[in-house]
């Protein structure tokens, strides 16, 4: 095997994309998950169904709709290009937008689950202490769902690193711009370069395993320390 001409750019792109996506999704998903966990609104099942769609839809379907919506031929794509001069497809920006849709449920669901297991009386104790909903979210709810929080962050990150179909549809395979690790591996296989495909795949496998192992080790340690209430 030849390691000398190993190109790390696809890995760098994969991790950059995952980091940006995780950061953006965290900001969007925390308020949404909090609202979903606290509300008795009739709209809740509809919103839950919509936010879970990316789990069941084939990535090609999500990719197709995003491509259709963001390309220059659609009003949204045209608006962004004419007003801000930003292209939304076949570049890194497009990948971030697509990934945010694709990984959304992986951020929302663990957070919502975490918020729902919180002791309701504990949250009420915070309101009684004069704290607003926002203060209660930041000072009481979030610090007490650390395992769920970590799961949400890591799974979102890992899921984005592992995405392939959506990326290919929306980003294509432009080196240094949209050619992430999963796409690179696909291309190696396509040109029958199995040795490079092996190296890239093994790196992905090991890194993914280590990340997940870290999460579960943390959760076990945390459960022992805080105790299950």
């Amino acid at each position, binding site marked *: 095997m030849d390691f000398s001409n190993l190109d790390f750019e696809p890995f760098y792109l994969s991790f950059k994309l995952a980091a940006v996506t995780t950061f953006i999704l965290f900001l969007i998903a925390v308020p949404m998950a909090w609202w979903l966990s606290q509300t008795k609104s009739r709209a809740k099942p509809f919103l839950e169904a919509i936010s879970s769609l990316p789990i069941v839809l084939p990535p090609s379907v999500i990719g197709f709709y995003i491509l259709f919506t963001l390309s220059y031929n659609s009003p949204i794509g045209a608006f962004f290009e004419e007003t801000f001069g930003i292209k939304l497809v076949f570049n890194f920006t497009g990948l971030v937008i697509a990934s945010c849709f694709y990984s959304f449920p992986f951020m929302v669901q663990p957070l919502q689950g975490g918020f729902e297991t919180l*002791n309701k*009386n*504990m949250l*009420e*104790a*915070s*309101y*009684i*202490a*004069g*704290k*607003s909903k926002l203060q209660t979210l930041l*000072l*009481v709810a979030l*610090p*007490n769902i650390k395992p769920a929080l970590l799961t949400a962050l890591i799974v979102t990150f890992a899921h984005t690193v592992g995405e392939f179909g959506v990326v290919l549809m929306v980003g294509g395979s432009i080196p240094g711009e949209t050619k992430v690790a999963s796409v690179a591996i696909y291309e190696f296989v396509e040109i029958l370069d199995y040795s490079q495909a092996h190296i890239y795949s093994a790196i992905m496998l090991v890194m993914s395993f280590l990340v997940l192992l870290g999460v579960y080790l943390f959760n076990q340690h945390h459960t022992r*320390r*805080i*105790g299950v*209430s």
Partner: protein
Amino acid sequence: MININIKKVLFGSLGKMDLDVEVNIKEHSFVALAGESGSGKTSLLRVLAGLEEAEGKISVNEEIWLEGKKSLPTQKRGIGFVFQDYALFPNMSVQKNLLFVKKDKALAMKLLEMTDMLSLKDRLPASLSGGQKQRVALCRALMNRPSILLMDEPLSALDPSMRTKLQHDILKLHKEFGTTTIMVSHDPSEIYRLADRVLKLEQGKIVQDSNAKEAFLKTKGSQKFSLQGELLDIVQADILYIAIVAIGQQLVEVVLDEKEAKSLTIGQSVQVNTKAFAPSLS
């Protein structure tokens, strides 16, 4: 003075029920809410705290908390609330649980001192016993110097000796802080020890408003003792029958004749009465 006049439809274990309570409570008094589970005690407490909606009017020392559609948010009512399950913040130490309510370190230290919790101030709640947790919760509820302290069965998860200790703490703090205290409780001895007024709820309505002695002393006429117990067993001994009755944590034997024995069923609730003897306490 607290004036309460509220109506609310509850959906309890027995189906739909109307909570309909009209009562005035004097400042600095200690009121116990008694009644079977599902009678609306907790709901009344939660409506007072602003945690649940209701129709009607609540005013506290001339301040309107509820009138028609207008309801003062929980955050602005300035109450203290003690939950049965403690509801402490697991991510904060004992001291920080208190300071979360108000950054008043002197008061926090004073409260922990009064409840013998000062040495545990840096512990996380998970490492405390039930009684210790509830003392922290009690201290936390007093951090904003509330005019009204609400407690929802605060001691029912604790063992008897811990209960007695906590009852003393509650009474001490109630007097020290001059709160108007409203506590849900099932325990007659606890109510007798703490409360100067008992409101008994049944199906969402107040059916008795009295002091603790009137509410729980069950003797009639020349009876000297009247104890509520559960009939556990009836054993035949020659021509007599002996009933085993559980009264609180104690088992007692009562001699029955055949007719009595036949009329009772095991498991039923019974009154054990006696007249002509002089009990002694030792």
